[in-house]
């Protein structure tokens, strides 16, 4: 059986919606098989095709009911004979949809994507409230960062919330530098004086962790960059460094795409 997925999307309600071209119409026994890469665990779900036309079919699968665990799941279609890995021509990536998907509070974030070899797969990540970084600057002696709040459940409106950004040293969390931040809806902007950082850290060279503390949220939000398809920002994005009082400061990312401020070194 030959199947080509032309449109694959995980909706806001975590329903996998697929449009595909098939050489045989989907019958009663048609199943979507999801296979976890690594462990080989499989989940099967019967498919009820809606809007079947000649050579085309549309299906929708509620993912929450399948108890999928974080990781990557390859998608297969089985009908009668052996299973067929589902070829995809949908790039599986829309920045605006990802931003909209991250508005709701979630424990798991699902994404349908096309593998490098051209097949449909699902990527599932644990989701917790976070501040997603979109831009970073050194301007007028300050470290500035702007971005979007993700998985907080806040609406994308103009409502203002009290917030501040903290810069903590991982070896001594009591040593922190703080500055007011602006949060409107899900957009944030924070700026921190680099002189304050140097003054607070004469003996604390190393990687400082920025956190955004927002009114209405229990825990401080880590700053990172995960709401897109770019993995490994550490290699791909190089922020320029600045020098304050002879101390070099440079923003950088960790291996798991969290933002840090490298002081000294």
């Amino acid at each position, binding site marked *: 059986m030959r199947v080509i997925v032309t449109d694959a999307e995980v909706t806001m309600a975590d329903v996998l919606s697929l449009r595909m071209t098939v050489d045989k119409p989907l019958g009663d026994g048609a199943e979507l098989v999801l296979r976890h890469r690594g462990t080989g665990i499989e989940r099967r779900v019967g498919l009820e095709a809606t809007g079947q036309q000649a050579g085309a079919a549309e299906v929708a699968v509620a993912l929450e009911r399948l108890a999928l665990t974080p990781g990557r799941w390859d998608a297969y279609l089985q009908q009668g004979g052996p299973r067929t890995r589902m070829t995809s021509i949908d790039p599986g990536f829309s*920045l605006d949809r990802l931003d909209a998907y991250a508005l709701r509070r979630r424990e798991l974030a699902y994404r349908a994507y096309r593998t490098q070899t051209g097949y449909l797969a699902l990527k599932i990540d644990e989701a917790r409230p976070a501040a997603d970084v979109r831009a970073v600057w050194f301007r007028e002696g300050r470290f500035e960062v702007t971005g979007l709040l993700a998985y907080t459940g806040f609406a994308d409106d103009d409502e203002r919330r009290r917030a501040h950004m903290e810069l903590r040293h991982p070896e001594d969390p009591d040593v922190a530098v703080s500055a007011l931040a602006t949060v409107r809806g899900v957009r944030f902007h924070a700026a921190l004086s680099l002189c304050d950082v140097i003054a607070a850290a004469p003996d604390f060279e190393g990687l400082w962790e920025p956190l955004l503390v927002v009114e209405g949220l229990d825990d401080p939000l880590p700053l990172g960059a995960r709401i897109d398809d770019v993995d490994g920002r550490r290699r791909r994005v190089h922020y320029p460094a600045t020098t304050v009082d002879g101390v070099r400061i440079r923003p950088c990312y960790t291996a798991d795409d969290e933002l840090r401020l490298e002081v000294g070194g």
Partner: protein
Amino acid sequence: MKICFLVPSAFDMRGDVRAVINLAAELAFRHEVEILSVRRTREKPFFPVPDRVGLRWLIDHRPGKRSLLPRGGMRAEVEVWRALRALRCDALVTTRPALAVQAARHAPKGVVRVAREWTRPAVPNPIRRHYPRLSAVVASTERTREEWRRALDEAVPVHHIPDALPVDPLPRSRLDNRIVSAGGRLVPVKGFDRLVRAFAIVADKRPDWRLRLYGGGSEEKRLRGLVAELGLHNHVFFMGTTPDLPGEFAKASIVAIPSLAETPGMTVIEALGCGVPVLGFEGRRGPEDFITSGRDGVLVPEGEGEIEAYAAAMLALIDDERRRRALAAGALETAAGYAASVVAARWERVLDDLCP
């Protein structure tokens, strides 16, 4: 028919390697096809070779591999000579003039010898002396065919067949991401510095758009320095190399090709195949051979003020979604001419005519 492609290395990340693998993969549905790589430079080929295509190599140049024999050109020539003397196939397709000269001199007489050419004839004397012993020359563009025809003075038939897109269906862009992509080896001839400078103007006016550069090479450090100098660290991403460039192009709304010379032009036809408009420069060896400005992409004149003109053309595309979609539709129509089945059928006609 048994067809053998002789390539300098089937393991590298180059457009010509991609083109040969695409063609071999389609021909292998109906013929016995083998790729003979002079060098093996890594464990696995950068672009995957399907199981139905045979793959052999002559010299192991993998990092860490040691050999008592010298690594230079002389050893390669000897190995190619030995391989050609022992060759058992109906048609041999070479992919470099140096290999074509070797094939002309040493391949068995019963074998149809075809030189695949992407660039103009660079070394006229050996070509004039040895190419007449070949069965045919197949150029990748009309312009290249004319150059080879003039160089060979009708001594050998010269055909034009473009490169092929992959056999598997290409991803289709939704044109809804604020991303401009560019891909290829990061070397001076690709002109990525012109693109970065032009994108500085674009980012100033449309700060929510991003430029993604795919590939690696000698220019990367200099380009990263240029990005830092222009303050584009939030806008330009160095995405590294990928064996799935079409998959990445399909995430973009515009593909930028700022090359001074675009040979073999695989990135251009892959962008067209993904339904993404291409923005390039006019010029004898640029993407002009593949793009019709206003139909499937936009070409900007080179020369004084070219950076500003390129940025203006990019901004015009960014601001006009309807035009982008119209160009994307044109791109898909153009790409149909590069489908693997269409291109392979043209190769089969040429080889059938030549085979006794």
